[in-house]
């Protein structure tokens, strides 16, 4: 019993495509030469990546002193960037796993690139905890293994260690979820490709997939299980990241709102980044029939709801501080809005709460350039949110004699640019070598009807072939 699609619902794939068309359209960007636009983006990203790599090399060789940190502000760009990138990764898992559990069929056009985005974002995120250690070459000490230091074990009570396990698990599970989803598509590419390197690589990686329904049955089970595992994983990973701050004692950090606040913010920022990539991808790879206006519309509505939750969280924080009567907590919020770093705070509020309100208006949601501008602002705002939380809470805490200012050095800015470079380089390469849309999933969700007759045939022939409809065939059997 196949589920039928209501005729009132706009089609998932526009343009009256057949199954063969879907395969051809999605595989096309992998075969044709990269466009000038792709090269421009790739070279800029590569340049940023090389700049960041140089900055990181210099910083590891010379020391953390090359950053603008001081005793008061011990964490700034490093952890801001870490939380920023982990947050971006979470939207990919939301689209893949959570929307799968909700049976939202529209996710099939965006989930492949969203998951790829997650992988690259988590890779970028993982760089920062590594490089922010004083001795990154000893990073392996974070792993619990029997050793010659008396067998000194790691401190399982520390959120910083929970982070190690959470981020590693998140990276590995995202990778396996992405790969398992890719296997049928790799088989499709294998069967279409002529003998050569592409054929050999897809043959190996597709594990001999042949479309057997028995295998599909087990595969769908495992996919559902992975989605069911990835969903609590998303929530747990960003909760654990928030615990890095929440388990401390500093006003502005030590608050129980952080776990849901961080998760909502992560999903918000991640959706903005996915939408940015979607708008670019659909245009440059000519996938407008697959990543339709309806998809962008739904992403906008999700972002709007998440943005409202984030705004509510800001308000709650402020209210709790005011209501608590705790002078230190109240000071933190006064300082954020009115102190020397108020420019960062008001950037954050404008970009995260103010600008997304434009998404209430359908005319704005329908305009892709407007949506693109809004999501870029959201990304900027969410970076500033983490910056505000970390730096403004640190730079003026309990003891006024410890108060200090913070200014980033060129090394830190270059490292941030480098992380964007790594992310976009990886994503642009992904668009060239892998199908950017999940071919099998989008076919399964779109309920494409086979063409009754070729379009060039005259009306009488079409009437004759359409006279035997599937419904009539079914009644004949029973």
């Amino acid at each position, binding site marked *: 019993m*196949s589920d039928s699609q209501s005729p009132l619902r706009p089609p998932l794939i526009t343009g009256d495509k057949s199954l063969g068309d879907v395969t051809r359209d999605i595989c096309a960007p992998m075969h044709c030469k990269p466009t000038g636009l792709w090269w421009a983006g790739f070279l800029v990203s590569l340049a940023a990546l090389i700049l960041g790599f140089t900055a990181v090399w210099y910083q590891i060789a010379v020391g953390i002193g090359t950053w603008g940190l001081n005793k008061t502000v011990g964490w700034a760009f490093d952890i801001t960037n870490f939380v920023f990138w982990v947050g971006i990764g979470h939207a990919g898992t939301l689209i893949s796993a959570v929307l799968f559990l909700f049976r939202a069929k529209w996710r099939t056009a965006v989930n492949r690139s969203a998951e790829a985005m997650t992988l690259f974002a988590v890779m970028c995120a993982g760089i920062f905890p590594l490089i922010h250690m004083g001795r990154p070459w000893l990073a392996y000490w974070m792993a619990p293994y029997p050793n010659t230091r008396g067998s000194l074990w790691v401190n399982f009570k520390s959120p910083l260690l929970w982070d190690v396990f959470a981020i590693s698990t998140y990276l590995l599970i995202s990778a396996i979820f992405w790969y398992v989803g890719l296997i049928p598509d790799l088989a499709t590419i294998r069967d279409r490709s002529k003998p050569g390197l592409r054929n050999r690589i897809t043959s190996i990686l597709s594990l001999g997939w042949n479309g057997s329904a028995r295998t599909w049955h087990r595969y769908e089970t495992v996919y559902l299980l992975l989605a069911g595992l990835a969903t609590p994983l998303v929530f747990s990973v960003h909760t654990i990241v928030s615990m890095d701050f929440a388990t401390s004692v500093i006003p502005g950090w030590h608050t129980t709102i952080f776990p849901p606040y961080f998760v909502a913010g992560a999903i918000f920022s991640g959706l903005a980044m996915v939408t940015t990539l979607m708008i670019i991808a659909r245009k440059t790879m000519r996938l407008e029939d697959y990543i339709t206006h309806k998809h962008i519309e739904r992403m906008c509505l999700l972002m709007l709801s998440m943005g409202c939750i984030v705004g509510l969280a800001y308000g709650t924080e402020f209210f709790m501080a005011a209501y608590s009567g705790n002078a230190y907590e109240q000071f933190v919020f006064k300082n954020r809005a009115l102190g020397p770093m108020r420019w960062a705070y008001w950037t954050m509020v404008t970009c995260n709460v103010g600008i997304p309100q434009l998404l209430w208006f359908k005319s704005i949601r329908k305009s892709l350039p407007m949506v693109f501008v809004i999501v870029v602002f959201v990304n900027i705002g969410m970076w500033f949110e983490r910056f505000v939380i970390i730096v403004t809470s640190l730079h003026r805490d309990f003891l006024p004699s410890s108060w200090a200012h913070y200014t980033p050095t060129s090394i830190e800015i270059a490292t941030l640019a480098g992380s964007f470079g790594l992310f976009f380089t990886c994503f642009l390469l992904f668009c060239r070598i892998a199908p950017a849309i999940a071919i099998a999933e989008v076919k399964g969700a779109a309920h494409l009807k086979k063409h009754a007759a070729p379009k060039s045939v005259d009306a009488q022939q079409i009437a004759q072939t359409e006279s035997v409809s599937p419904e009539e065939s079914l009644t004949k059997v029973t």
Partner: protein
Amino acid sequence: MTNRVLLATFDDDEDLLAATTAAREQGLHIVDAFTPYAVHGLDRAMGLAQSRLTWVCFICGMLGALGMLWFEHETAAVWWPIDVGGKPWDSLPSDVPVAFEAAVLLAGFGSVFALFAVCRLFPGKKPTNVFPRTTDDRFVLVIDEADSSFDLPSVRQMFGEFNVIDVEERVSDGGSIL
């Protein structure tokens, strides 16, 4: 032992579903079906039992969680307890995040490796497509002709009612039906 099989090719998933249901109702022995995507309801039409991989996932998850909890307890409370901020040696609440992550990791990887093992998927396996377009836009139903009461013309006619594109007979020598 040679085996004759019948391959019925369709270009629409609903036709395949209806044909599979009809074939099963007629008592035909379905070897397998090949589709470019997971057709909703096909497993029920073929009479496939629910997969036991869910149990593998659950057991691996439990092993991960309990194993990690044991490890955390041993390191922090038995092998070398270290006083960090006066916190108790064996604190179950603080053990939960890492144990949860280990559970998810083991459950995920366990299920996937079990899937590969059960479906015999491994790198370097030669593709065994019965029909080249089964990964593109064709749906194939494979029926076993082993039953002596198998009547080819009536089966062909039945498939014809479901807009079958092609009906082909093949002989398999106990191995593949390529």
